[in-house]
């Protein structure tokens, strides 16, 4: 069982998302949302957050969060090389490759 740091501050829960919130979340999730879609998305998300909101009222002081279905510990794998080169099979389904590399638009750090 994992214990987490207790809440040290009060969290402000907005009653509803703004269009700017929707665009911020969409960008974090790397999903393009057009202005037209944003309004509909906002309404649907707010409906879902209303559904979720009921859980805020529950007093859960002293309850340990449950991250996994079973309270068991991680099994460790022996440090052995078990994999062989299967690049050709993996890259057969890739959108764009060259010289064994996956290609993406230029990245400037």
């Amino acid at each position, binding site marked *: 069982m*994992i214990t987490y740091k207790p809440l040290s501050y009060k969290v402000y829960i907005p009653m509803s998302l703004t269009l700017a919130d929707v665009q911020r979340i969409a960008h*974090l999730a790397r999903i393009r949302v057009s202005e037209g879609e944003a309004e509909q998305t906002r309404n649907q998300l707010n409906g879902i957050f209303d559904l979720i909101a009921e859980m805020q009222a529950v007093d859960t002081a002293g309850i340990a969060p449950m991250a996994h279905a079973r309270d068991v510990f*991680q099994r460790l794998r022996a440090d052995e*090389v078990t*994999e062989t080169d*299967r690049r050709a099979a993996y*890259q057969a389904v890739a959108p764009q490759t060259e010289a064994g*590399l996956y290609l993406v638009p230029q*990245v400037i750090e």
Partner: protein
Amino acid sequence: MQWETVIGLEVHTQLTTKSKIFSGASTAFGAEPNSQACQVDIALPGVLPVLNKGAVERAIKFGLAVGAKLNRVNVFARKNYFYPDLPKGYQISQFELPIVEGGSLTIQVGDQEKVVRLTRAHLEEDAGKSLHEDFHGMTGIDLNRAGTPLLEIVSEPDMCSAAEAVAYAKALHSLVTWIGTCDGNMQEGSFRCDANVSVRRPGEPLGTRREIKNLNSFRFLEQAINYEVRWQIEQIEDGHKIQQATVLFDPDSGETRMMRTKEDAHDYRYFPDPDLLPVKLDEDWIEAIRAGLPELPQARQLRYQAEFGLSAYDAAALTGTRALSDYFEAVAAALAKADPKLAANWVMGELSAALNKAELDIAGSPIPAAKLATLLGRIQDGTLSGKLARQVFEVMWTEGGEVDAIIEARGLKQMSDSGEVERIIDEVLAANPKSVEEFRSGKDKAFNALVGQVMKATRGKANPAQVNDLLKAKLAG
């Protein structure tokens, strides 16, 4: 106006496991692109991570070596962000409950010792590599490195100069290679430093820091920090505020610049990885690892001072790497007559100079410890003078061969027959009446000239002490 510099380091050390932290793919360096990226590493749909015991073991080893607290239960979390070298769209790392917390490292800055506190060390997976050579205006992604185990070692902001930061990085490098958790190969990226740098006026609270990413040599670390400190001071003195930022160091220009790809607000949405369960460290396992730890550099330094009478400086130099230290101990142990100082002088002097010149580390030395000990033994038994020994060393280094065979073949044996030396002295005195005259009239310098003539006549093979004695006796007589 006085300024204080505050530096903390985050060092990514690649662990020396054979396989990756969450997959059975090889971690060997330099393979064909993506040939060591298995289905887990390239994040095919449906694949899952399983933790490598070897990675956990190395983290425990490090924690024990720095006297840290080991979290008996520690947790892997996901750090979410999009980047092409990060196939899952998240990095598996440790966040709230890292495996190692606290600990410290003692560093040597000039004559001063300083203790640098460690915040934490956590296990995580490395990302792949972006190759920016032009592929029709595109970037190529190689995921061979993706999933290589890293132990990220985070220090407290305890360093106050580039020199201290470098001393810390070197001490850490020495330690992780010493205990074998990391191979320390900085060219291959096995040991990479990020430096958090800020400046403040004395007595004021900490300034805003900027993080210099991916410094893969001690020289760049030093240059980057020095540049960054000057830049920050200039900014503030010009009336600007420092904005928190991530920057890169350009070795060509010697300057730091903002990273373009980190413009996103850092909202990594950490949460416990549901595919990995909490990791439990058994006491028995920890104790077994503790028992297997080698004698650590600091303990050796103290022992060298106490047992061998070496200075703190020499002791520190000899424990720069475990291989060097082991070499020194092997030489000292093989000497017929115990003389660790003689061994130390030769290892740090002749040998280190030759290694530096040849850009070799101790493992690449053409002269093994046993041979060097044999050579020093010939000094101890009077066969060789120091000068002759250096000649033998030179031959061993460049051509190889056994010590005695070289002495024999090149006739480098020191003259021990006093009759022969006396004969030569007589000849020298006869040939240099002027010097004899000057000596007798009180010029000490003339004595040294005569010694030089004798040594020259014996081609350096006479024992200088013996020449001194005999010459003094003759001139007095």
